[in-house]
């Protein structure tokens, strides 16, 4: 069973039909890339998975999204728990204006209330190690996170998520502000993280999707046009619209 399954998922922003009958399965311990032109609904789809769209006025959703078999739109779903389980990394790294240490323990405190200092220390060390920042930052954990480089900030944001032990990492253009070297290092990190997480990445960078993902979905005008193994999508797409988009004929 896929970690996340959407069945007949539709979404409207007021009168605008942003997602149309999306049916897809996102496997655990894999990286799934969602590609498509601007405005195709890929970020909207990503935001459905931790119900971030709930914050937008006039949003209407139909269909099901099952995570581990449970419908996230069920009345009994606790949003805080859902967002603990399904974390999101954004295009621009957005650390809090706090110390490196406080950035990481922030979510741990939100989700667990009062936590002993040694437990927090452990969470900081483990999360920074998993994003390969520990050696660089261990001696300046009290320094402001906003002074880090862009790449370090993005890694810190991933570490901040990991600290609350999610199952799913949603990444919305996580490398779009990074240079090619930093991008390559974040991609390496994603490959390491997929052993423990379900990762879904939205990207405009076709080569990034081809390099890093196991499965790829192509979206156009709110529809999931094609979904399959990444190598199949990029060497032999079945739908002409996918072919046109990934070969740059679309537009």
């Amino acid at each position, binding site marked *: 069973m896929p970690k996340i399954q959407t069945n007949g998922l539709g979404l409207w922003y007021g009168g605008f039909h942003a997602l149309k009958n999306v049916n897809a399965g996102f496997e655990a311990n894999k990286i799934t890339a969602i590609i498509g032109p601007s405005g195709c609904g890929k970020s909207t789809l990503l935001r459905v998975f931790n119900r971030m769209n709930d914050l937008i006025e006039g949003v209407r959703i139909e269909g099901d999204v099952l995570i581990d078999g449970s419908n996230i739109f069920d009345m009994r779903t606790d949003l805080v728990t859902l967002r603990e389980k399904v974390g999101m990394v954004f295009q621009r790294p957005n650390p809090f204006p706090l110390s490196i240490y406080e950035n990481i323990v922030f979510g741990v405190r939100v989700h667990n209330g009062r936590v002993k200092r040694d437990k927090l220390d452990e969470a900081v060390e483990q999360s920074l190690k998993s994003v390969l920042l520990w050696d660089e930052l261990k001696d300046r954990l009290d320094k402001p996170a906003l002074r880090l480089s862009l790449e370090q900030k993005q890694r810190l944001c991933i570490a901040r998520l990991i600290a609350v032990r999610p199952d799913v990492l949603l990444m919305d253009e996580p490398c779009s502000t990074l240079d090619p070297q930093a991008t390559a290092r974040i991609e390496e990190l994603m490959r390491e993280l997929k052993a423990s997480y379900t990762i879904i990445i939205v990207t405009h960078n076709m080569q990034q999707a*081809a390099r890093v993902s196991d499965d790829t979905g192509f979206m156009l005008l709110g529809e999931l046009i094609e979904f399959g193994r990444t190598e199949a999508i990029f*060497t*032999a*797409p079945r739908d002409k619209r996918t072919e046109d988009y*990934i*070969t*740059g004929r*679309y*537009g």
Partner: protein
Amino acid sequence: MERHFDEELKELKQDILKMGTFAEEAIYKSVEALKNRDKSLAQSVIDNDNNVDNLELAIDEKCIDLIARYQPLAGDLRFITTGMKINAELERIADIAVDIAQRTQEIADQPLLKPLVDIPKLTVIAQNMVKMAIDSFVKGDIELAKKVLLSDPEADELRNLIHKELVEDYMLKNCSTAPRAVQLLLVARFLERICDHTTNIAEDVIYMVQAEVVKHHPEKIKGD
């Protein structure tokens, strides 16, 4: 949307087509030279091989350049990778024509062992297969590619027939015919190998067009 890349792909296709024309010409001239024992025509095939080799290198370079600069995907990727493979097959075909020309030069001064009947037939099959294979690539025509694959058994059969005749009717009966018979055996073998190269091209074309690997899976062709 029109892409500059399409212009580059068009040029690549033209170059591969030119390579195909070189290969076709080389086969035709090498067998004509054999039939007419024309040493100078044979020599022209050998001399032109340099041009074939240079074009092969230029096409390879162009393909690598396109991959590096455009990072092609999907149909574009299949077209370029197939183009590289077809380029190599055509160069091998032209090399085999050179082999035939060299055999021709060796036997041109001797009387023909026998009137050539089946070798010209095999030549026609080989030339047709080369032509169909190149056309199938240019037009992206799968049916034509399949026709190439289905023609190969006929070439094999004819080669076996030539082999049997030369060995049983000449070499075994009169061993003094062996030096000339061996040259003809080789020519038949060369022509049959040209046919084998065209089947590789046809298989590559099928992959290029419908992303289906039929290489080493003959049942996928017979099933249609």
